[in-house]
């Protein structure tokens, strides 16, 4: 009965109710859209970060990730790969050799990072060959010691596919070493870091140059769907047994700056949303305060007819609750609609005039933001909005409950 009464009361003041509904709906829809956009862009950043870092969980020689030092390699690399592959939750244990190097031709020299990969395994995370614009894949070329370079180096080094490039790097023991490589192809990723700063080669070629047959700099773990990186990292720390000290990092630990940015970005969103709902809450509180004063005789009558004062307060709260539920239902529908539209079309960040961003040392270019729903987050937000809006009518409800029937009925406008 309370709800029916509440519903009827609300529509007796149509304009007022509609204004309130539109305010709550607007704020709530905005919150949902902002969360959708934020979570999607953050996810894209994280994906880029995880790809750049090399996996969801990373295994290195202790101290490597902070220093990226060429001498901090896992000597017993193949054994680590073997042990890691057997851990539950690990889909792929992907070995890489990474070392700073100087690429030289007769035309010039360029400093870059040499990354030696297993092309088949690498494709499970992010295949660099996706960006291949010219030449052949590392696993298809006939060339000895093949190397893939970014298109940004074509002019600087005056090279073509098939040309020779000399790479200079430190061996793990600190001695400088040089290797003769041949350009298998060029990569055009649109990212300066890859197009100008990286050379990909095969593990065999790199091991040959560094004269260390079993070394690995990094083992990047790709997880089985649904596996949690924290648990897998724990398991790896327990299981891995080799004679040298290792570090096992989750992407959260490996990308502290990116996680920091995302958490800060989220925090600001919540601050703004909180203030926005404070403003909305004041407006709701106000409206119900007026509504109670206005209907003081009605309440007095109901009270005299036997509706106990507690029930009167409950009636006011029921009205807010109905109002809130209607608003949230409309808001949710609009939010989902916006989510669908944004997801299917996408918002290119370039339309805001931003073509390239740098975040945590990682270039992100031509990002197209779509929308992503994290059901738990949406649920929590919805409950928070509900509590705020219904809560803001408590004051008015208490007032209604405290009315004395005789006095209330005596009240003249």
């Amino acid at each position: 009965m309370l709800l029916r009464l509440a519903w009827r009361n609300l529509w007796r003041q149509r304009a007022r109710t509609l204004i309130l509904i539109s305010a709550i709906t607007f704020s709530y829809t905005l919150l949902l859209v902002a969360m959708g956009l934020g979570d999607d862009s953050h996810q894209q950043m994280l994906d880029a970060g995880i790809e750049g870092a090399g996996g969801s969980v990373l295994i290195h020689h202790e101290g490597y990730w902070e220093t990226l030092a060429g001498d901090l390699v896992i000597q017993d690399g193949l054994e680590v790969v073997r042990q890691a592959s057997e851990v539950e939750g690990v889909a792929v244990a992907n070995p890489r050799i990474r070392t700073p190097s100087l690429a030289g031709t007769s035309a010039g020299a360029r400093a870059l990072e040499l990354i030696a990969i297993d092309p088949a395994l690498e494709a499970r995370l992010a295949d660099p060959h996706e960006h291949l614009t010219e030449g052949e894949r590392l696993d298809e070329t006939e060339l000895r010691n093949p190397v893939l370079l970014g298109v940004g180096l074509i002019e600087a080094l005056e090279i073509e596919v098939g040309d020779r490039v000399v790479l200079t790097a430190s061996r793990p023991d600190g001695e400088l070493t040089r290797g003769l490589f041949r350009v298998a192809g060029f990569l055009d990723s649109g990212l300066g870091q890859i197009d100008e700063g990286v050379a990909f080669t095969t593990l065999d070629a790199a091991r040959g140059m560094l004269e260390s047959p079993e070394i690995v700099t990094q083992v990047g773990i790709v997880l089985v769907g649904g596996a949690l990186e924290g648990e897998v990292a724990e398991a790896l720390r327990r299981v891995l047994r080799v004679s040298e000290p290792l570090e096992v990092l989750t992407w959260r630990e490996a990308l502290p700056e990116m996680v920091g940015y995302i958490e800060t970005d989220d925090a600001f969103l919540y601050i703004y949303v909180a203030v926005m709902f404070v403003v909305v809450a004041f407006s709701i509180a106000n409206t119900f305060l007026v509504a109670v004063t206005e209907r003081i005789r009605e309440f007095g009558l109901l009270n005299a007819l036997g509706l106990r004062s507690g029930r009167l307060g409950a009636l006011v709260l029921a009205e807010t609750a109905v109002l809130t539920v209607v608003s949230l239902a409309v808001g949710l529908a609009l939010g989902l609609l916006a989510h669908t539209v944004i997801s299917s079309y996408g918002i290119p960040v370039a339309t805001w005039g931003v073509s390239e961003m740098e975040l945590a040392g990682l270039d992100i270019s031509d990002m197209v933001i779509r929308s992503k729903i994290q059901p738990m987050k949406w649920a929590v937000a919805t409950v928070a909005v509900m509590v705020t809006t219904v809560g803001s009518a408590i004051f008015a409800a208490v007032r209604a409950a405290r009315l004395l029937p005789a006095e209330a009925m005596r009240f003249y406008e």
Partner: protein
Amino acid sequence: MGLAIRLGIRNLARHRWRSLLTLAGIAAAVGLMIWTLAFVDGWLALMVRAATGMETGQLQIHTPEYVDQPRVFHTFTPDEELWAAVRGAPGVEAAAPRVRLFGLIGNDRTSQVGRILGVDPGLEGEATRVVDGLSEGRWLAAEPAPVPGPREVVLGQGLATQLRVGTGDELVVFLEAADGSLGNDLLEVVGILSTGNAAVDRGTAYLHIDDARFIAALDGEVHEIVLRTADPEAAPTVASGLDGGVPDGLAVRPWQELLPGLNQILTVSSNSYLFMYLILYLVAAVGILNTQRMSAQERRREFGVLMAVGMAPRRLWGVLVVETLVLGFGGALVGGVIGTGIAWRHATAGLDLAAFTDQGGFTYMGVMFEGRILAEMSVQAVVQPMVVMLVVALLSGLWPAWVASRLDPAPTIAGRT
């Protein structure tokens, strides 16, 4: 007008709770807006400062070939005439020569790819604030260390960590010289830099320009001249002013061109507050509108009587609009005080990012945001949100006032509406 204000204030006071709640809503919106403007200003200033002030400078001069393709042999030799023209240009406060090289820096354990800047220690300190970023040791000496001693180098913090060296340690540099040979030499770390500019901190080594020239087989040449202007915003104007005075078609580029990505982000970010206005103030406006509408409706008999005793509809309209304005003004004032208070606190003591993330900070657009971010107070940041709120309040009061002023007195008084 005096009567209208008196009436308005009296009406508001009669419904103390209602007025206070509306006022609080307005105040919250204005307060947050003031804080937002101050914080965004501080944020953007930090970005410009860290990005341009530490390393890029406000303007740079290169050969067109170097702009096209930064190679070690695309150099020029500035003469006295050029220096005079550059230093005398209006808006230019300092100018410094640089040699810019890439190479491997390392020791017997490890090596890293690094960017090597050969600078004139004194002039560099005038053109940029890099010396302020010293976290350990000292800046390069004015004169290069005597041969055959190791040459002095100041390393970015990140590079030092990666190489696992500190002041006093020795390093070897290995790079491509202008004549195509491979230059190498022994270095001694004399200082470590923590500037907040990621490019400097992560991968730059500063050498005395004469040392850098020696290693790279350059003779009195430079790759770039870096300039400091009084006002970073004025850099493009200074650049076009300089264009004529610089010989040989040298390219003069402001930081907005040198760091296009940063410039884009700054433009977008500095306009982002418009969204905030739109959203927060729209919600606040709905609150005002609703309250004023209800309050006018409630008092329609009173209005009817007023009109019956001769108050012109225009006058009644005025009373109601003034009432909304008083409410808006009060809210703006309270919000102004609160917002300014919080913004002031964050402008002096700073806002600790650790409150938002246990990671302590992040880098964005090559700038490290760590620890405390200082907001920047300005008259505009305080006044603008208050003035805009007054306009918003005025607009949202128009409709209820208009409806009230069109009452038909007789049926209204009789309660037949």
